């Protein structure tokens, strides 16, 4: 019964998070945005005190239910473990807590966070890891299905579905997502929650509270027949029958599998009685079981997935190329060929409005990719710069930061991008436009243009005669940098290709104009 409830909540929860990541219409963000905001690490970064207290209290009362029903990466691993158990029943064994590893990982995370090494935190954060998997691996499948429906809708003159562009937004992020997915698949398939109880910093923090949780599973030694079914079905490897029926509550994720499994009804989920100690062990004597096995397995698995990653990556790349080619076929005929825009060499990266500046963004962002999957204008993409690896940066060769859109700021769970109203957004300067004389069409082609000035939402671009003494001379744009907000409309709509004649330089710190 308890297990069934846990499973139902977990499935609903992971479906909601996944929908949040794959949806491109903005509907999910409107109704399900909260689910990203109740994730532990994002709430911590956003200093969302209410959520933190709630989650800690939840853990203190019920144990690590967070890891079983809220954390999407935990639920995903349960999914993998479920497949593993299909292959081989009763496959888990007890192992002792690798406390040193856990604490080292936690300390490293804290140090990296304080030192501002965002990419390290981002790599370990469970919610963000799931976000990268969902946005890099699941979203393309979702988009593909949507595009099939869109084709069908088009044939039936319906506007219910529209086609979305699917492309690799960041190679590194995709690679990281694939590696994470494969490693976790192998780990969870074979040993359940290894990651959660060794590496995951959130798991370690919650374990401090879970050790003292009020409700927890206990073994009634009077009823127990030492059949070890509970131990062999514990995905956290935290039940040890041989060592006096101990349960390590720091690792127990409160999945209730053991309670369901027990043939004698010897296990119950009950509150802690101060005077009693049936068999609950907080630390307990450690059994000398070698953990070399597990380590060897980790090594082996990471070795295999190097080649596997290559294979998968090339497969995805090939599929994408095929898709692009098929698309381009529809656009020939008497049309001029359009060269693809190239990204200009920006001295400072552009980060989205609401991020306040590069420093604020890098310090708060866990690179979950939610803003990137949310961006409807193909502006945001994961950075490849080491100092802000996988965190969002803006570029305008596919689209520009449209004045009516504030979706990234509204969806960010960590407060790395702070919510903005439309009016606020249009007065935040995230960069400024720079004119490149050599590329400007009126000078190179000798025709009237002014497309940048025509589309500037703040009227920061004016057209002036290229020769001040000749009122007949072709007009060129001048930028009033005080009014420019760096939205990139000019860069994106500039007819010069592959490099625009006007491009945006990012600002380290955003300011209000």
């Amino acid at each position, binding site marked *: 019964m308890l297990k069934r409830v846990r499973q139902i909540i977990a499935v609903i929860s992971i479906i909601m998070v996944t929908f949040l990541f794959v949806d491109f219409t903005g509907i999910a963000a409107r109704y399900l945005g909260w689910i990203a905001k109740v994730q532990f690490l994002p709430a911590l970064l956003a200093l969302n005190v209410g959520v933190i207290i709630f989650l800690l209290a939840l853990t203190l009362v019920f144990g690590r239910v967070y890891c079983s029903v809220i954390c999407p990466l935990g639920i995903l691993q349960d999914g993998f473990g479920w497949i593993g158990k299909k292959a081989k029943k009763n496959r888990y064994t007890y192992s002792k807590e690798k406390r040193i590893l856990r604490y080292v990982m936690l300390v490293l995370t804290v140090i990296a966070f304080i030192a501002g090494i965002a990419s390290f935190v981002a790599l370990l954060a469970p919610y963000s890891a799931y976000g990268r998997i969902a946005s890099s691996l699941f979203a393309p499948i979702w988009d593909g299905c949507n595009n099939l429906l869109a084709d069908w809708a088009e044939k039936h003159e319906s506007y219910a579905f*529209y086609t979305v562009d699917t492309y690799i937004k960041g190679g590194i992020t995709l690679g990281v997502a694939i590696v994470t997915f494969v490693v976790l698949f192998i780990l969870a398939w074979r040993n359940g929650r290894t990651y959660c109880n060794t590496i995951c910093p959130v798991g370690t923090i919650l374990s401090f509270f879970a050790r003292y949780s009020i409700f927890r599973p206990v073994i009634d030694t009077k009823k127990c027949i030492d059949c070890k079914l509970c131990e062999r079905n514990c995905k956290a490897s935290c039940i040890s029958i041989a060592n006096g029926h101990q349960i390590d509550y720091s690792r127990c994720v409160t999945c209730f599998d053991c309670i369901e499994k027990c043939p004698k009804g010897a296990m119950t989920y009950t509150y802690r009685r101060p005077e009693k100690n049936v068999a609950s062990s907080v630390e307990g004597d450690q059994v000398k079981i070698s953990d070399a096995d597990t380590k060897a397995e980790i090594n082996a698995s990471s070795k295999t997935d190097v080649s596997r990653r290559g294979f998968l990556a090339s497969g995805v790349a090939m599929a994408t190329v095929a898709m692009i080619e098929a698309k381009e076929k529809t656009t020939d005929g*008497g049309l001029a060929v359009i060269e693809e825009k190239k990204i200009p060499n920006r001295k400072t990266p552009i980060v989205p409005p609401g991020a306040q500046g590069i420093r604020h963004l890098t310090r708060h962002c866990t690179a979950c990719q939610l803003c990137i999957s949310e961006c409807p204008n193909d502006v945001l993409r994961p950075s490849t710069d080491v100092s802000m690896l996988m965190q969002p940066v803006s570029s305008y060769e596919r689209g520009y930061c449209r004045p009516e859109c504030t979706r990234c700021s509204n969806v960010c769970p960590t407060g790395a991008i702070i919510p903005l109203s439309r009016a606020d957004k249009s007065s935040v300067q995230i960069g400024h436009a720079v004119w490149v004389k050599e590329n400007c069409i009126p000078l190179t082609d000798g025709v009237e243009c002014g497309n940048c000035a025509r589309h500037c939402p703040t009227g920061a671009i004016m057209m002036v005669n290229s020769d001040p003494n000749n009122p007949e001379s072709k007009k060129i744009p001048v930028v009033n940098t005080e009014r420019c907000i760096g939205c990139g409309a000019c860069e994106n709509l500039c007819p010069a290709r592959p490099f625009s004649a006007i491009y945006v330089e990012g600002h380290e710190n955003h300011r209000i104009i």
Partner: protein
Amino acid sequence: MKKDINRRDFLKRFGLGASVVGLTLASCDSTKDKVAYTASKSELPTGKMTYRTNPKTGQKVSILGYGCMRWPTKSGGSARYEDEEIDQETVNNLVDTAIKYGVNYFDTSPAYCKGKSEHATGIALSRHPRNSYYIATKLSNFAPETWSRQAGIDMYRNSLKELQTDYIDYMLLHGVGMGDDGMDEFNKRYIDNGILDFLISEREAGRIRNLGFSYHGDIRVFDYLLANHDKYKWDFVQIQLNYLDWKHAKEINERNTNAEYLYNELAKRHIPAVIMEPLLGGRLSNVPDHIVTRLKQREPERSVASWAFRYAGSHPDVLTVLSGMTYKEHLIDNLNSFCPLKTLSSEEMNFLYSTADLMMQYPTIPCNDCKYCMPCPYGLDIPSILLHYNKCVNEGNVPESSKSENYAEARRAFLVGYDRSVPKLRQANHCIGCYQCAPHCPQSIDIPKELHRIDEFVENLKTGKI
């Protein structure tokens, strides 16, 4: 038991099926009769063409005139838009058919089909007796280098040669009123160089049987020429007339004049009118669905275009209605409208005027997808953008404000449909306004202006300003 039922069922179905087959076969026979009957009815009768009389010469001119500006090319398109050789064999065939059913007015010009029309028309017509048809051609001295007297005379003499004849039945000053300053250009083309006097002398010599002009644009020139009718004695005038331009020409384009005024001015002076653009560049055959329904409901067996042709022919002072027929189907359809012409009643005329009012509620851009503006050097797909806009106009998906009844659906249909019809990189927001396209547009659409207007509309839709 079960098996039995199945078998019985099977037999039942089989029997039913067989009888259906039988019925179908039986009905096939009767259908055949019907088809044969309709076919024989639609067979064109010779000698039924309606003719109008030229008041000066008493000549009988067929109400359907053949416009020779769209002769077919060998690749199957119209020579107007393609840089290809004219398909002479098909031209001969079209001319033979036209003459067989009574068409006797052929209108060409030294400018048509990149200058090849007169030659092709001459070949086709010279295969028939010279007195079985009338030739209309023009002095098409548009380019400033042809404004000299000698160049004008050369052009005229060349027309006689190409058309293999020693006289022209109907000679026109081509497109008076065009240009930035219509009056000035008219003077330079025909008055200052004495060409008009020359043509009048040719008329006196009998080498020009009727002298007239075709008019576009500046109304001052039209008024001036009619005011001097006593001096020039115009035998006919060619004007643009159709049921949309009758009252709405000025609304569609500020430079134009309503056909009602033009026609009445001519009728007042008993000058026969030759009608061009009866179909308004195809816009009166390619109309919104609700207009098709409206027209078809009244005359299910007539084409949409036939309404426009019969409308033009129903004005009593019209000498002939020109149609540039590239395909045999166009010719047959028009012959059906004019053999004989059943003139529209005043009730039917009013029906067309209210149809025109309905069409004007949908201010479509007069693009007919000729692709002459293409390729745009900056990659835009101009006709697709304009046609998408027109489609949304015709379907009522161009909301005027967010308070419009169907705002949400219309907005979605416009924006989603826009991305479907035009790839993002070829949409209107990429138009830089270089104006390289505009001079190529035969409908004189101010393309960059229209694109910027559509872009602004899209922008307003996206930002929720409307």
